[in-house]
C-alpha cells in the first residue's frame, strides 16, 4: 500500500520545546457529555452544493455522521474539506441541499447559533485569541454554555444557592451566601474556571494555563484550540488538520487524545493529511476530490480504493 | 413642502445643482482615490480644498487682480490661480501623507488611529488659517469671512429658448472644467502605466508590490492627484462664491465625502455621479423645505447610503478597469 503520509510541514518548529504531554489528570466526571444513544445519525450533509459565482466548491456532497463515531474527511488539497467544515458551522450557506443536525435543519443558521446547537471546530491555521491566556481562551468556550446575561453580569441580581464546592470559605461571606445565595455570574465564573482547567489538563497543557496563547509553543496552541472547542460542549467536534506540523510521537498522542474525546461522549470529525493517523484512529472515512465525494467506507476499503489512490497520486500517463 | 417653489424654477434649480455637484465631485475624487488605494478615509482632505481657496486669494493679491480687468489679464490671472491652487492643494495633501500617515503605516497602526490623526491634521490646518497665521500676519487670516476678488465677471452667455433659462459663463466654466478634469483623470487611471499601478494597488497591494509596483509611490501619486483635483475645485468654488473662510473645508468636505460614498467609494465615476446627484438633491431640497435643513440632507443621505447600500450606487471599484 503506498505510503500516503504527507511530508513534514515546513512550519513545524522542530527545535521547539519538546512536547511533553502531561498525563491526563482531569476530572472526567466534569467533562463527560450526556448524549443520546450511540449509532443514531447525528449530522447529515444532504446533497450539499456550494457555488461562489462561477466556482463550484462543493458539488452534491452527501454523507452522514453517526453519533459516537470518529469520521475522517480526507482528500487532496483544494478538495473542499475545510469548505465542508465552513458549511457545517454556518460560515457558508449551501447554494442547494441541506445540513441537518439530529434531524433539524441547520444550514443557513448563524455560526454562534449552530455552536449552541452542538457543533464546534478547530481551525486549519490556528485562530486562538492571541492576547488572552490559555485559560481565558477556554473560558470563552465555556461562556457559550453559560446563562448569565449582560444585565446579570452588571447587577448580579439573579442569585442561586450553590453546592458546597462553590460556597465561599470565609465565615462572613459564607453567612452572606447562605442568606442571599451567590450570584449566577459568580457561580458560572467559578465553574467555568474549574472546567477550563480540567480541559487544559485533559489535553495536557495545564502547566501553561496562564500564559498568553500567542506565546505558547505550536503543539500547545493546537491542543488549546481543541480544549476551547470542547469547552462549548459540542455533540460534534470537527478538527481541521489537528496534526499539521506534528512529529510522529506527537501524532500518537493526538490519536490517543481523539479517542479519549470520543470516550467522553463527543462525536469527532477529522480532516487530516497524514494517512497513518487517519487509518489508525477513524472508524469510517469520506474522501473528497474537487468538491465531490469519491469514496466512503471503512479505512481498509478506502485505502485500497483505486479512485482514492488516483486522487492522491494522479493517474499514470498511459491509463485510459 | 413648497412644491410650487420647486417646479416653477426646476430648470434653474437643476442647473444650480449640477454646478454645485461638479464642485463636490472634484473634491470627492480625492476621498475616493485615497480610500480605494489605502482603505482610509482622509479627514484632512477637506482642508486640502480650503488651502486651495487661499492659494487663489494669494495669487490674485500678488497679481493685483480686481474686477474689471481686460480679457487677457483675466485669463492669465485665472490660470495662474488655477495652477497655484493645484500646487498648493497637492502639496498640502502630500505633506499630510508624509508627516502623518506614513509614520503610522510604518507602525502598522489600526484604522482608528489613522482617522484620529486625520482629524488632528484637519484641525491643525483649520487653525493655521484661523489663528496661527493671523497671529503672525494679521488679516486677511482669522476666523472671518474673507472676500475674494471677482476676477471673472458673470455674464450671461446665452439663454435657452422655451424654458427661458439663462446660462452664464461662470456656470459653463465650472461644469465644463469639472468634466474635463474628471475625464482626464479617468483616462489617466485607466490607460496610463502609472494609472495601472494605482488600480493594481487598489485591488491587491501585496500582489502589486510583488509585480514591481512601488506601493509608496502609488500612494504619493494618489494624494497628489486628489489634492490637485481639490485645487481645481477650489478655483471653481471661488469663481462661484467669491469668498472663503478658515473653516470652509468642513461643509464642502463633508458633502464631497457623502458624494463619494453615494457614488461608490473607491469608484472614480461614482464620484461624479454622486456629486451631481447630491448637488441636485440638495438644491431641490432647499426649494422644497427651508434652507436651514440643507446640510442635514448631506448627513441623512450619507447615513442612509451607508446603512442600506454601503457600496454606493456604482459599487466599490477603483481596482476594476471599468469603474
Amino acid at each position: 500500500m503506498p505510503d500516503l503520509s504527507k511530508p513534514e510541514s515546513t512550519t513545524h518548529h522542530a527545535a521547539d520545546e519538546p512536547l511533553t504531554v502531561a498525563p491526563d489528570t482531569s476530572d472526567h466526571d466534569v467533562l463527560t457529555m450526556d448524549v443520546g444513544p450511540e449509532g443514531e445519525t447525528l449530522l447529515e450533509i444532504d446533497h450539499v452544493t456550494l457555488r461562489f459565482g462561477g466556482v463550484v466548491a462543493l458539488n452534491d456532497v452527501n454523507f452522514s455522521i453517526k453519533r459516537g463515531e470518529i469520521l475522517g474527511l480526507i482528500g487532496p488539497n483544494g478538495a473542499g474539506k475545510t469548505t465542508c467544515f465552513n458549511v457545517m458551522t454556518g460560515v457558508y450557506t449551501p447554494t442547494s441541499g441541506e445540513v441537518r443536525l439530529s434531524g433539524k435543519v441547520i444550514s443557513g443558521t448563524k455560526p454562534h447559533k449552530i455552536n449552541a446547537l452542538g457543533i464546534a471546530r478547530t481551525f486549519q491555521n490556528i485562530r486562538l485569541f492571541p492576547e488572552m491566556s490559555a485559560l481565558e481562551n477556554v473560558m470563552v468556550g465555556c461562556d457559550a454554555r453559560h446563562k448569565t446575561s449582560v444585565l446579570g453580569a452588571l447587577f448580579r441580581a439573579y442569585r442561586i444557592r450553590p453546592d458546597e464546592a462553590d460556597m465561599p470559605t470565609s465565615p462572613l461571606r459564607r453567612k452572606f451566601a447562605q442568606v442571599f445565595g451567590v450570584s449566577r455570574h459568580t457561580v458560572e465564573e467559578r465553574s467555568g474556571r474549574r472546567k477550563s482547567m480540567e480541559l487544559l489538563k485533559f489535553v495536557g497543557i495545564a502547566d501553561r494555563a496562564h500564559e498568553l496563547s500567542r506565546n505558547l509553543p505550536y503543539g500547545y496552541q493546537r491542543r488549546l484550540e481543541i480544549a476551547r472547542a470542547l469547552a462549548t460542549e459540542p455533540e460534534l467536534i470537527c478538527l481541521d488538520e489537528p496534526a499539521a506540523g506534528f512529529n510522529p510521537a506527537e501524532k500518537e498522542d493526538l490519536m490517543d487524545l481523539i479517542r479519549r474525546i470520543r470516550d467522553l461522549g463527543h462525536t469527532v470529525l477529522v480532516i487530516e493529511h497524514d494517512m497513518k493517523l487517519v487509518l489508525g484512529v477513524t472508524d469510517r472515512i469520506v474522501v473528497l476530490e474537487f468538491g465531490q465525494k469519491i469514496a466512503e467506507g471503512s479505512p481498509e476499503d478506502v485505502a485500497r480504493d483505486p479512485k482514492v489512490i488516483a486522487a492522491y497520486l494522479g493517474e499514470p500517463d498511459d491509463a485510459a | 413642502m413648497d412644491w410650487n417653489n420647486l417646479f416653477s424654477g426646476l430648470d434653474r434649480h437643476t442647473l444650480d445643482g449640477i454646478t454645485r455637484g461638479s464642485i463636490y465631485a472634484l473634491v470627492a475624487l480625492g476621498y475616493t482615490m485615497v480610500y480605494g488605494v489605502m482603505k482610509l478615509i482622509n479627514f484632512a482632505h477637506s482642508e486640502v480644498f480650503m488651502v486651495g481657496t487661499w492659494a487663489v486669494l494669494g495669487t490674485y493679491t500678488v497679481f493685483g487682480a480686481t474686477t474689471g480687468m481686460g480679457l487677457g489679464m483675466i485669463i492669465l490671472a485665472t490660470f495662474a490661480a488655477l495652477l497655484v491652487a493645484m500646487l498648493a492643494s497637492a502639496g498640502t495633501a502630500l505633506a499630510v501623507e508624509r508627516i502623518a500617515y506614513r509614520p503610522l503605516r510604518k507602525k502598522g497602526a489600526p484604522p482608528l488611529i489613522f482617522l484620529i490623526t486625520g482629524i488632528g491634521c484637519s484641525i491643525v490646518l483649520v487653525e493655521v488659517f484661523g489663528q496661527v497665521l493671523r497671529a503672525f500676519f494679521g488679516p486677511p487670516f482669522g476666523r472671518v469671512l474673507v472676500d475674494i476678488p471677482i476676477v471673472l465677471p458673470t455674464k450671461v452667455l446665452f439663454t435657452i429658448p422655451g424654458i427661458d433659462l439663462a446660462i452664464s459663463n461662470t456656470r459653463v466654466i465650472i461644469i465644463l472644467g469639472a468634466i474635463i478634469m474628471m475625464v482626464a483623470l479617468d483616462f489617466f487611471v485607466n490607460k496610463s502605466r502609472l494609472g495601472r499601478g494605482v488600480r493594481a494597488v487598489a485591488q491587491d497591494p501585496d500582489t502589486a508590490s510583488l509585480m514591481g509596483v512601488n506601493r509608496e509611490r502609488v500612494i504619493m501619486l494618489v494624494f497628489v492627484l486628489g489634492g490637485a483635483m481639490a485645487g481645481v475645485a477650489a478655483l471653481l468654488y471661488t469663481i462661484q462664491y467669491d469668498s472663503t473662510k478658515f473653516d470652509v473645508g468642513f461643509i464642502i468636505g463633508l458633502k464631497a465625502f457623502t458624494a463619494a460614498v453615494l457614488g461608490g467609494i473607491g469608484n472614480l465615476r461614482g464620484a461624479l455621479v454622486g456629486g451631481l446627484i447630491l448637488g441636485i438633491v440638495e438644491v431641490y431640497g432647499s426649494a422644497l423645505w427651508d434652507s436651514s435643513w440643507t446640510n442635514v440632507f448631506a448627513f441623512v443621505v450619507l447615513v442612509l447610503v451607508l446603512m442600506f447600500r454601503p457600496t454606493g450606487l456604482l459599487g466599490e471599484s477603483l481596482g476594476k478597469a471599468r469603474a
Partner: protein
Amino acid sequence: MSTVSDAYRGLRLGDRWNQAPQWTRRVGMLLVIAFAFYLPFLNILPFAYIRTDLSSSGSDWASVLFLVVVYMIVAVGLNVVIGLAGLLDLGYVGFYALGAYSVALFGSPSSPVVEAIQAKFGLSEEWAVPFAICIPIAILIALVAGVILGAPTLRLRGDYLAIVTLGFGEIIRITARNLDFVTNGATGISGVPVPPGPEIDGRAFFNTIDAHRWYWLALTILIILIWMAFRLEHSRVGRAWLAIREDEDAAAIMGVAAFKYKLWAFAIGATLGGLAGLLFGSKQQYVEPNAFMVNLSFLFVAMVVIGGSGNVYGVLLGAFLLTYLPERFREFQEWRPFAFGLALVVVMILRPQGLVPSRRRAREFEDRKVEAEEAAADA
C-alpha cells in the same frame, strides 16, 4: 520620549500596585477618592497652583472640576464602545445632547413640550416633570437612540461605522436647532431643573454658586459607573468583547453572539453619554444646540485615544488633561483648538497606544509594529 517612558516603566508602578496586598490597595483607593472630594477646597500653596481661578479671568475651580468629572463619565462610556468593544464612534456628542435635551424638554417649565402638556391638562405654568423622573427618561431616550443607531450599522466596516456615527451626531444637533416647536431651536431652553435638595442660605441646594456640590454629585456618580464598568469588563461580557476584538469570526464559531454584545456596548455607551449630558444641562440650567458641535465628539474620542483606550485609568487621565489644561491656561483661549489638533497629531504619531494603555493594547500595538516592519522588510 522613550527615556521618560523607560524610566516610568522602571518604577513598575503598575506591578507594585497589583502586587500590594488587598488592604493596601483599598486604603490607597480610598485616599485618592477622599483627596478628590477635597479638591475644591485645596488652598495650600504650592499645590493650589493647579486651581484655575487664581486669576480674575479664570473659571470657577469647582465648576471646572465638575466639567472634568462629567467628561470623565463620557470617557468611561466611550471607553466601553471604543476601548472594550473596539467600535469606532465619532458621534458620541449625539447621546450627550440627547441626555441634556431630555432633562430640558421634560423638566423645564418653559420647554415647548412641557408647555404643551400644561395646556393639554390644565396644569400650572410652573409645572414640569420632576427631576427624579427626568433621569430615567433621559437614560431611556439615550438607550433607545443607541439601539436605533446601532442595530442597522454595527455590521458595517469600522470606518463606515465611524462616519455614520458622525452623521448621527450632527443630525441630532441640527434637528435640535431646527425643530423650533419642540426644542426652541437656536434660542435653547432655560429653566432646566436641578437635583432636589434642602434649601441652605435661602438658595436651592444645587445652585450656580455652590458648584462644589455639583462636583461631588458627579464624582459619586462617576465612581459608581467606574465600578460598574470594571464589573462588566471582568465578566463574560468583557471576555466576549475582547474575543470579538481579537477575531470576531472565530469568536462567533465559538458561540459568542457578536452582534448582541456589540449592540450592548453601544447601548451602554449611549446611556453613559446621556447621563453625562443630563448632569451638564442641569448644572448649566440652560440647553442650546451650539453646545453640541461635532468638535466635542472629536474631543471625546481624543480623550479615550490619547489617554489609552481600553484602560479606565488611561481614559480618566485623557479626560482630565483635555479638560483641565485648556481651562488652566485660559488666557490662551484662541490657541486652544490649534494646541488640541497638534496634540492629537503628535500623540497619535509618537504613541498611538495612548499615554496609559492597557497592557493588552500596548502588546497589540507592539505586535502590529513588528508585523508591519517585517512586511516592509520582505517587500
